[in-house]
């Protein structure tokens, strides 16, 4: 077994990482169609590299921003960190517990109560029943949903939905926190509260990955910024250096 070539204070390391999607020329949705075309020898796939040749090293405690046009591969990159996608080539190493904030509240069930959903969502994030028992009161407290916690989720507003999702995902300090343009939901007060919590994680040494189209937010928060362009890492530098160049490019 080869020894990991990862430095100890490196939280995330990517070595020559590529993600290839196979895009069929025609969309084949049914098994019947697939068999017919296969017999006819008409199945052709086009390779699409969502990411290619990415080398990145993100250190403990970094607040790291990803910018780029829509479809550049920013979210794909975060999926690699969150273990959702395995890279087609190259190597991804992540040290520590990753708290994904990709679309908060994914996995909630309409018919179940808030309480039941907290336990379900916690289990989706990999927590044990025991851990969830311990976290439960804090989660409801943070979401400010004591009055509604035994009502079915279908009676919740979008804001309440988002609050509960955020509270579950961020109850305990993660080693890596992924923030993918999710901060747009909830009222002003809760937005402020969740922002503070993220800052608290940062101060306690969590590595934070932010994908955003708001250059103001990125400049304000991030130590370093990676500019992703058509699946390639175009440049990587301090926010104050990259953002003016980026804005110039898209003017």
């Amino acid at each position: 077994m080869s020894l990991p070539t990862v430095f100890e204070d490196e939280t995330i390391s990517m070595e020559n990482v590529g993600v290839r999607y196979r895009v069929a020329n025609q969309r084949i949705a049914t098994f019947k169609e697939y068999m017919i075309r296969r017999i006819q020898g008409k199945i052709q796939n086009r390779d699409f590299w969502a990411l290619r040749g990415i080398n990145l090293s993100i250190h403990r405690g970094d607040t790291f921003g990803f910018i780029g046009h829509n479809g550049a591969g920013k979210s794909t990159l975060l999926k690699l960190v969150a273990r959702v996608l395995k890279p087609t080539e190259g190597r991804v190493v992540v040290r520590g517990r990753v708290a994904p904030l990709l679309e908060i509240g994914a996995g909630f069930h309409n018919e179940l109560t808030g309480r039941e959903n907290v336990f379900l969502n916690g289990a989706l994030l990999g927590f044990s029943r025991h851990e969830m028992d311990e976290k439960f009161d804090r989660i409801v407290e943070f979401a400010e949903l004591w009055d509604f916690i035994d009502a079915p989720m279908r009676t919740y507003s979008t804001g309440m939905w988002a609050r509960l999702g955020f509270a579950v995902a961020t109850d305990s300090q993660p080693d890596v926190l992924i923030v993918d343009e999710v901060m747009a939901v909830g009222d002003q007060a809760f937005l402020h509260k969740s922002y503070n919590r993220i800052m608290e994680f940062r101060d306690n040494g969590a590595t934070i990955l932010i994908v955003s189209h708001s250059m103001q937010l990125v400049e304000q928060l991030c130590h370093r910024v990676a500019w992703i362009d058509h699946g390639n890492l175009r440049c990587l530098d301090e926010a104050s250096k990259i953002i003016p160049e980026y804005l110039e490019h898209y003017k």
Partner: protein
Amino acid sequence: MKILSTEPIYDSSRKRSAAIEELQEILRYRNLVLQFIRRDILTRYKRSVLGIAWTMLTPLGTMLILTIVFSNAFKISMPGYAAYVLNGLIAWTFFSQTTHAATVHLVWGGSLLNRIYVPRTVFAVSAVGTGLINLTLSLIPLLIVTLITGLPIRWTALLIPIPMLFLAMFAMGIGLTLSAIAIYFADVTEMYQIILTAWLYLSPIIWTEEQLPPNVTIFVKLNPMYYLINLFRIPIYEGRVPTLAEVAIPGVIAVITLVVGWIYFASRADEFAYRV
């Protein structure tokens, strides 16, 4: 900076058997399996008056219809025919519902797999768990009907967990294989429904082996469910201890189906997020 030894490290290049890795992950996520089972049971009955009683009423209703139709139309007259039908029907319902649920849950859970990491076998494993709870509950009407038809309940009824385990393993193996294909093709679930209907009539549920013409028996014995349903019927309906062959054949079928299904599914699982 020092690294805490408890810290999980994810390395995408780590070479391990996908099947073993999936097994370790599902054990680590056992709370999620329990939560999924809880969700399935709770949501199924939440807005219904009779609630959990449906688990027992549904097979009873089907059994009544089949018994009336077949004992009148086809002049089947054997003692305890109702219990015979219900026995087979319960085992069959478990198998068909579980395999179907495993497929549907993975396909529907596809959007989840695109956002968050969970062990992909969680859908099939929890479907089997939900099925086993329903199967256990439907033993209650089975025991009642058996008593009503005048058959004695012997101590051998306590052996019923063995055929239940084999049925669960077989269903999980089929469910995993099927769902790994169904995630790519929308029509696989529909096709499976048709296969299930044919499979039902090829299994010893409404007919007994003695009624079959000898040349058909050979084909029936190619059906794995033949052995599994027969074993399920022995402890309660027949009230005896199964022979070694009656246990060994379905046992081997169950183990092979589960192992092959698990390995196949695990080898495909990393591609799911690329396609869904």
